[in-house]
């Protein structure tokens, strides 16, 4: 493999690259041939570069595997003593050493998908607006930068804003519809998360929509389609795998978000009964309780929570990949 690459390098026809040894400086007997010799240093540089890339790639793979193995090994004490009941246990009581992760699993999935449902209309609207209606101009630049800025704001700031502004608003909204009026809870954290994840789907969607070939759209217009019809029957079908990938990216962000959620969700280890009740997510339980988890089994139960979160993320990503490839194969 390696030698064939080298041969190819050696026998590639000359180009005008300045790094190539000029043929006029070569000995007479070489002159006139169509092949140019690369110096050993050039070949070595090529090989070193290629090897570096391979090593960096391998390190990534090993890193992810290593994280997973660490999680599995460290959660072994808890897996051994609690077994599968850990996954559907509803009580989390560090004092009595009873650990059930179901409320947190439900909390994580509920907040993330609710946030996704709230954010999708906004992110797709932004993507279509910027990709199709106003790809250029000061207003679209402003909107684009603003949306990108949303992703750059640290999550603790969202948490603080949620605590100070959103929670009181949600509280008065809840009391007006007759739900329990605390303000903290799954609904508030989903709203915060929805704002935080808009840019991911929006930016990817925008660049996808801009890449739709003009001749497809022109063809549709030539057949008498309106703009809405072009969007619905040309742009969206053409970009659906890209849009879905953006949604997946948003979901991944929502699943792992810790700080902003923990500040507004209410942090109770009781099963949530509605979207207005308080709850907790796996990430925020780990962040809250790991520093003082001194018992082996407690520590290990928290790490197992990390493992479950890791596996949930992997599973959702794999399902997403399947959906994308099905879309593309159509």
């Amino acid at each position: 493999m390696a030698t064939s690459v080298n041969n190819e390098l050696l026998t590639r026809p000359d180009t005008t690259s300045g790094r190539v040894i000029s043929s006029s400086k070569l000995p007479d007997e070489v002159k006139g041939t169509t092949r140019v010799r690369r110096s050993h240093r050039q070949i070595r540089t090529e090989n070193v570069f290629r090897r570096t890339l391979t090593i960096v790639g391998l390190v990534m793979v090993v890193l992810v595997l290593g994280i997973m193995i660490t999680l599995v090994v460290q959660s072994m004490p808890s897996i051994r003593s609690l077994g599968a009941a850990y996954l559907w246990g509803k009580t989390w009581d560090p004092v009595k050493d009873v650990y059930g992760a179901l409320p947190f699993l439900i909390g994580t999935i509920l907040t993330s998908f609710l946030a996704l449902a709230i954010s999708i209309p906004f992110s797709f609207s932004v993507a279509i607006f910027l990709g199709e209606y106003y790809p250029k101009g000061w207003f679209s630049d402003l909107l684009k930068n603003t949306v990108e800025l949303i992703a750059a704001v640290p999550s603790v700031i969202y948490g603080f804003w949620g605590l100070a502004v959103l929670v009181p608003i949600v509280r008065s909204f809840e009391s007006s519809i007759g739900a329990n009026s605390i303000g903290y809870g799954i609904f508030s954290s989903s709203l915060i998360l929805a704002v935080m994840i808009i840019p991911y789907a929006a930016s990817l969607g925008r660049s996808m929509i801009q890449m739709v070939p003009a001749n497809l759209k022109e063809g549709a217009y030539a057949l008498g389609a309106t703009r809405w019809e072009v969007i619905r029957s040309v742009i969206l079908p053409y970009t659906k795998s890209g849009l879905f990938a953006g949604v997946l990216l948003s979901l991944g962000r929502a699943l792992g978000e810790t700080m902003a959620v923990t500040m507004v969700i209410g942090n109770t280890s009781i099963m949530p009964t509605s979207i207005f009740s308080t709850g907790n997510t796996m990430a925020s339980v780990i962040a809250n309780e790991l520093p003082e988890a001194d018992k082996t089994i407690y520590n290990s139960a928290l790490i197992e929570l990390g493992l479950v979160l890791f596996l949930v993320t992997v599973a959702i990503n794999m399902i997403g990949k399947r959906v994308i490839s099905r879309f593309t194969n159509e």
Partner: protein
Amino acid sequence: MKILKSIALSGLAFAIAGSMFLTSCGGSGNGSKADSSANNDNNSLMGAGSSFDNPLFSKMFSEYDKANGVKVNYQSIGSGGGIKGLTDKTVDFGASDAPLTDDQAKAMSGPAIHIPVTAGAVVLSYNVPELKDTLMLTPEVIAKIFLGDIKKWNDPAIQSINKGAKLPATDIVVAHRADASGTSNIFTTYLTKVNKDWETKVGKGSSVSWPAGIGGKGNEGVAGTIKQTPGAIGYIELAYAIQNTMAYAKVQNKAGKFITPSIASVTAAADIDIPADGKVSLTNTDAPEGYPISGLSWVLIYQEQKYNNRAADKATKMVKLIQWMIHDGQQYSGALNYAPLSAKAVAVGDALLKTATYDGKPILQ
């Protein structure tokens, strides 16, 4: 065959990851060795633990450095972290808001001594705009509120203590700490002592399974919930409540008096007979003027200071530092809203420091 292959593959990955882990451990091991050799100038000490102690310790250590030229690097990583650091011998001393549990003591290579260093209190802060006077609470009522048994502010149980006060019919919203903390530990230890129901249903610990209410992150999270939510009640550190001018309740102590939490009443709570090992919980104190939800904070050191090639000089410097902290260092408590140690607590601390040895010989003469 396929399974075998996958086992072999995962084994390989495991080996790679394991070797990486080992190298990283080796790296950090070298790092800490370098640290301790840097520490071998014997003029810098490492401590870790309680975040409750941190503001006071920062002030104390900076003053001590000015006067004696001994630098102390204190990492405020939580009591559990401090205990772990001492167990692993990565720090010279730990600081904790709770005495070592039997399991923690067993994990250590030798006996550790607990030197009381400061005291703090947990107050019940509330948000009831209709209430003009200071709220008064009994242990029974506090436990029932936090168990979720008392749900309304105008419950007869609260009304009968606060005679004449106008209590609204609003729901009680309980706020507690979401993150594991020494504050929660003091509060749940108190409730466990005063209420049977609490003891059986919840128990004590730095994080427990709360039967009611919502969790906030840190003192600021709980305080934020209380300030924002009409009808809220929650527990926070006394120093935090004073600094943020929040309303807090008087609590009935064992002697039957309703005590306003203050630096004086916390010091009074510690004015009890402290056992020779220094390990005492001040919650539900016997002291007649003492505020019942108080707690000591301890500095933890190994009794035998000769370990890991520590120099005698370093051990002496550390013991002298702690001695200074419980005597001269106490003058900085008041300004930072910590309760200075009672004379009895200082006497116990002195006696304990005298038991610290280096190679079997007492460090302090």
